[in-house]
């Protein structure tokens, strides 16, 4: 197992707190951080032929946007804190994709923020963080 942590990040305050926490822990154990952003996407959604034809282009745009707006600035902060950092962007469902990437990178644990969702959907289907706890094969740390 690698001495690295997978940190789920987006633009929320919760994920910033999670990253702060991850940086502190990584300093203590000189671990590497893998900053990960999942772009919500399902292979089972329905689209018009127009949308399908332009999909490859849109996907590139989504990835570039996530990288430039979310990941690169955060990675820079981590680097300035003196830590090794990697970034990862993938389309998919939040919890499933994080769990899958964690396995792929063979990380020691996943660190994620507790998203502030309290709507009906969360009540019925559970939040991303609770789902992650249920399905992950590596330890998960949820930062409130």
């Amino acid at each position: 197992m690698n001495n690295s942590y997978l940190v789920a990040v987006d633009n929320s305050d919760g994920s910033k707190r999670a990253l702060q926490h991850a940086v502190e822990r990584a300093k203590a154990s000189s671990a590497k951080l893998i900053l990960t952003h999942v772009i919500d996407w399902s292979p089972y959604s329905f689209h018009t032929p127009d949308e399908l034809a332009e999909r490859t282009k849109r996907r590139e745009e989504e990835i570039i946007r996530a990288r430039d707006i979310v990941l690169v600035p955060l990675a820079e902060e981590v680097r300035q804190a003196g830590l090794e950092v990697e970034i990862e962007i993938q389309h998919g469902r939040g919890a499933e994709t994080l769990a899958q990437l964690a396995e792929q990178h063979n990380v020691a644990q996943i660190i994620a923020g507790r998203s502030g969702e309290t709507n009906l959907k969360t009540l019925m289907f559970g939040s991303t963080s609770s789902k992650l706890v249920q399905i992950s094969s590596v330890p998960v740390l949820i930062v409130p």
Partner: protein
Amino acid sequence: MKTIASMLAMLGAWLSSSSAHAAGIDETINELTAPIASFIGQVVFFKIPLFGAQLPLVVLWLVVGAVFFTLYMGFVNLRGFKHAIELVRGDYANPKDSGEVSHFQALATAVSGTVGIGNIGGVAVAVTVGGAGATFWMILAGFLGMSTKFVECALGVKYRQENPDGSVSGGPMYYMRNGLAAQGREGLGKFMGTFYAVGIFIGALGIGNMFQSNQAYVQLNTVAGGALDGLGWLVGLALAGLVFLVIVGGIKSIASVTEKIVPFMAVLYCTFAIIVILLNASYIPEAISNIFVGAFSAEGVTGGALGALIIGFQRAVFSNEAGIGSASIAHSAVKTNEPVTEGYVSLLEPFIDTIVICTITALVIGTSQVADPNFAGGATGVAMTSAAFERQFSWFPLPLAIAALLFAFSTMISWSYYGLKGWTYLFGEGSQTLYKVIFCAFVALGCMVQLGPILDISDALVFLICVPNILALYFLAPVVKREMNDYLARIKSGEIRKHNQSGSDSMAEET
């Protein structure tokens, strides 16, 4: 925006000047189109007399093609079925490609282009004209058509063109031009590509446009109790306006909402159809026996059993579009390095469209007919199907009208894209707006003429483009067969593996 505003103004001016004699509009347009329809119909459906029946040569052309591809590809329609399901389920999807067009999405989009009013109304027409036996031949044609689809969709992906802006364009015109050029038949490929592009553009105005808007109007009028009689032009303009907003105005939200609702409507339609069939349970044996008996000895059908066969085959092709090549345009957007995989996925299209949905509709009508031969009171098309549902659920015509309207709308959106691809193949990307305006005009026109001439025109045009398409498929079938065998060998050797949920490769399945 300026052009849109001025066009709307023109539309308004035309509307006010014509409303004075609105009652006469429908008949006038009918009188004008009927002779054109019968002329086109006669040319395309050149018939050869055969044992008392009239066999249109194009139908023979399609059937021979479908039988050939079924045999040549080694019954891929049967043997590839399981693999098609695995592909759609995402078993072989590489997580690295997530966010790209999945097999499921390509299939869903193509299916919502083919599941149209033909599945509800066209089947009723077939059963009226060809008797219950037409259903049998329709199912058989759907089964054989799966192989044709396999070939054309695999080719669509293989020879698609990636545009400089990152979007993709594919379909028969591209495999004709690029595929035949690779075989040293450059001139022929170019000619066929152009011919096809012209045909799909004109065909888009018929099968994917006028027929849909016409039947949507008929159904609305039935629900409204005839209140819309003579107001076809008004419904037509309203529908045309909506299509205009989507394809010219770029209001994608209408289209994406439709795309999301249509699959649920289809499931809902099938569910209720099955309930109706179950409520008619005591008539099922006779309805089924009518289908089989009628298939081989149709009494009271012009041309007997052969007449039923011709009608059945014609309806199946009209519904699932196998051999026409249109679906190949929609399937070309998928992200895969193996063109053959999209061929497998497209097998499911005639299966869902014809073997499942059309058969269910035929059974709804068939069981109702056994129960009460005059249940529809002489109505045909969507109105007949609606009457069959109404026997069990008196409130059903309204939701059915809504479903029909949505099916019609999504089919029109899909076909506007197919026609557009033909148009841009011919005239380049610059002149799209002109095409889109023409398309909207035909939506309105579709509500103004009677079903007969419209069916004739759209059938004829669609059958016309399958001539070059099937020809190209004959030329290129060896390419597909080579790729298919190579692909199957790599699955067997374990080179191509399933990806499981966690992202690590699982063991290749024994095949």
